[in-house]
């Protein structure tokens, strides 16, 4: 059976994108951001921070083995994970705020996928030349020259990828030590495996997958649709000004044409390979490069800039009606963005307050309830408690335990004479504690009596307490 009709295509090859070089204010901004963001990523693990002799001196460290997170002055223990939760909530609210106000600024300027792709494209341009040269080379049959250029490009990419994967592991252990071990091939296999995986993903995502990540793999373009509304400032094409587009400006009838001279500059610079003139779309990461490209053209043909520009949906209606443009601030300051700002700042202030309120010693007392109490040979009643003492300090500290209750309780520690235990630097100690009530005391016969256990730190005299109960024979 044969049919003249072509069957529908089920699969489509990726159209390679060869973004042209562009100059302009957004490109300059993106260069700066790229420098700063890459700098932060590569340099952070090498910043030193003195915390005392028993503590790591790395400013930012995720210490998985000891389950600690260090960030300059801040040290987070696993039981303080709410700090991390709070930071994640702030990150989420921040994204909501920025997206509802400025659209996908995250995607266009700060997302690692965008920054590294941009870097890879820049390297590609250095090695192969600008758009036209790259297209020509792509279409050319394989030759020694093509192989040489492609191999050197891939080698450069691989080097960047290796540096990227390599920098990641430094966040998790002391960077200088690890660097030495890595070079001496003595580091833990996990370090090499992690570097290997991250090198491979960076190389692949930055070199070949690029815009496909944003279009097919990343959830954010889908989520952002819910964050944007008609006041969100995003990148758009003023079709009421540009259409009908046309090339032949000198020809008769050119007066009927809009400002768009159909030069495709905006399409050629787009790292996503799309045409913004089709309207704002899922594939647009709002990187602003088409604005730069179009402004350059408008300058050349002597038309006002801003045929492509940052605008909100609501601008279209007023601009079509010939009204003056709505100010950017009016778009940005609206109840929704202000609510996000308030929530964001609220969580932030809450976290900072918590950070300063928390004490660097911590005690929790869990009564041992199997059994609830023990009767000793002299008839006295004894309860046992598991006291957990946390010393979040750079040096070992003694803690003296005591009771505050008007009952004649006696406090003893398992395996220790006296009431003082030493907790090592930045450590947690479990100490079993016994509280005994004499046979004839009311606490010994009552079902339960409230009890407060105090811990006093021996260096600065800080005190903490924990409330619990004492079970008597009546229990």
């Amino acid at each position, binding site marked *: 059976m044969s049919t003249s009709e072509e069957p*529908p*295509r*089920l*699969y*489509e*090859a*990726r159209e390679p994108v060869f973004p042209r070089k562009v100059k302009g204010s957004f490109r300059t901004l993106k260069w700066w951001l790229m420098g700063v963001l890459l700098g932060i990523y590569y340099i952070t693990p090498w910043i030193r921070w003195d915390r005392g002799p028993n503590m790591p001196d790395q400013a930012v460290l995720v210490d998985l083995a000891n389950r600690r997170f260090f960030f300059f002055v801040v040290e987070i223990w696993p039981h303080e994970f709410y700090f991390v939760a709070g930071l994640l909530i702030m990150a989420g609210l921040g994204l909501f705020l920025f997206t509802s106000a400025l659209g996908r600024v995250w995607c266009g300027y700060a997302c690692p996928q965008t920054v590294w792709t941009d870097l890879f494209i820049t390297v590609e341009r250095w090695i192969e030349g600008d758009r036209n040269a790259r297209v020509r080379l792509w279409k050319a049959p394989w030759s020694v020259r093509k192989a040489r250029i492609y191999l050197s490009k891939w080698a450069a990419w691989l080097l960047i990828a290796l540096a990227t994967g390599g920098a990641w592991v430094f966040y998790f252990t002391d960077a200088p030590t690890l660097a030495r071990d890595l070079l001496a091939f003595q580091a833990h296999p996990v370090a090499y495996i992690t570097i290997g995986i991250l090198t491979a993903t960076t190389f692949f995502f930055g070199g070949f*997958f690029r815009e*496909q990540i944003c279009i*097919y793999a990343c959830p954010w373009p889908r989520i952002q649709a819910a964050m944007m509304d008609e006041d969100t400032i995003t990148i758009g094409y003023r*079709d*009421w000004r540009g*259409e*009908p587009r046309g090339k032949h400006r000198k*020809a*008769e*009838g050119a*007066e*009927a044409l*809009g400002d768009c001279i159909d030069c495709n500059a905006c399409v050629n610079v787009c790292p996503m390979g799309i*045409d913004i*003139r*089709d*309207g704002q779309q899922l594939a647009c990461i709002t990187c602003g490069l088409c604005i730069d490209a179009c402004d350059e053209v408008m300058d050349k043909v002597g038309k006002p800039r801003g045929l492509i520009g940052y605008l909100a949906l609501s601008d*279209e209606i007023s601009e*079509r009606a010939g009204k003056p443009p709505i100010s950017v601030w009016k778009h940005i300051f609206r109840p929704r963005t202000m609510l996000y700002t308030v929530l964001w700042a609220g969580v932030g202030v809450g976290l900072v307050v918590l950070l300063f309120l928390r004490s660097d010693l911590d005690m929790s007392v869990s009564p*041992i309830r*199997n*059994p609830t109490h*023990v*009767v*000793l*040979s*002299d*008839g006295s009643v*004894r309860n*046992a408690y598991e006291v957990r003492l946390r010393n979040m300090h750079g040096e070992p500290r003694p803690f003296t335990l005591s009771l505050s209750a008007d009952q004649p309780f006696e406090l003893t520690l*398992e*395996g220790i004479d006296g009431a003082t235990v030493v907790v090592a630097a930045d450590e947690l100690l479990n100490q*079993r504690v*016994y509280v005994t009530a004499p*046979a004839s005391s009311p606490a010994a016969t009552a079902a339960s009596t409230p009890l407060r256990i105090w811990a006093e730190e021996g260096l600065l005299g800080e005190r903490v307490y924990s409330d619990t109960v004492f079970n008597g024979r009546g229990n």
Partner: protein
Amino acid sequence: MVDPENKTPENKVSPPERQYPDPKKKIVEEPPTTGHVWDGIEEYDNPMPRWWLWTFYITIVWAIIYMILYPAWPLVTKATSGILGYSSRAEVANEIADFEARNEVWFQRLNETEIAALRDDDELERFAVQAGGAVFAAQCSQCHGTGGAGVQAAGYPNLLDDDWLWGGTLEDIHLTVAHGIRNETDPQARFSQMPAFGRDGLLDVDEVDAVVEYVLSLSGQSHDEALAEPGGEIFQMQCAACHGADGAGDHALGAPALNNQVWLYGGDRASIRESIWYSRAGVMPAFDGRLREAEIRAVSVYVHQLGGGE
């Protein structure tokens, strides 16, 4: 189709009105739809990206390689074993072996340390308490309870208090755990037997009652003075040999102290009478041979640190 005539000057009289695009009209052509409609929402029929297809092929290749390397096809008795010879059982066995190899160092240290000094080394003690706790949960908790409080009604001693039948030092505990109590299979087990004074006719009912009152007086409980006096005389003759003249008991004989507040079988009048009349005693098995020496030492340390260790 573009009409070339259109561009010729003859056809143009005056420049046409500038045409603003209709905002409702889309500039791009929409892709075809699948024809599915839900609540007015249609589904585009876009082709899939080709790399998606590649990923699919890669999974197939992966599956084939996996089936060659790893156990895959179920056969009648077992699955194909794969050329790597992997098995999850072997992996567990390896992990256990690895775990044991790491513990071995500690077991060595436990064995080499004097029993009485086992708690002097902090590190070793910590290990012993952890390891001993595991042994206790598996071997001892059935009778002595998971918390070590014993079961009074059944005569399983409480290990938390400060009253011991056979001694509460590390060495005593170790001896008890290793060889058991009244355990006929182990010649080193400690043994003692209290006579059944009433059942065997050694004392008559009145005499037993008198001794009961005297025993009550030893622990300061309310008792009948008139009966306690003759009871005391009988006690000195019949009971003091083991329980001591003052009723303080004797660890060497496993004779419980009667002058305190801790009772294995209950300290009220009826329980004491029953103990004297019928005699009661418990049996504990030996763990020597069932557990390794290091484990016995570890569990001894664990019991010692429960609160009653001497």
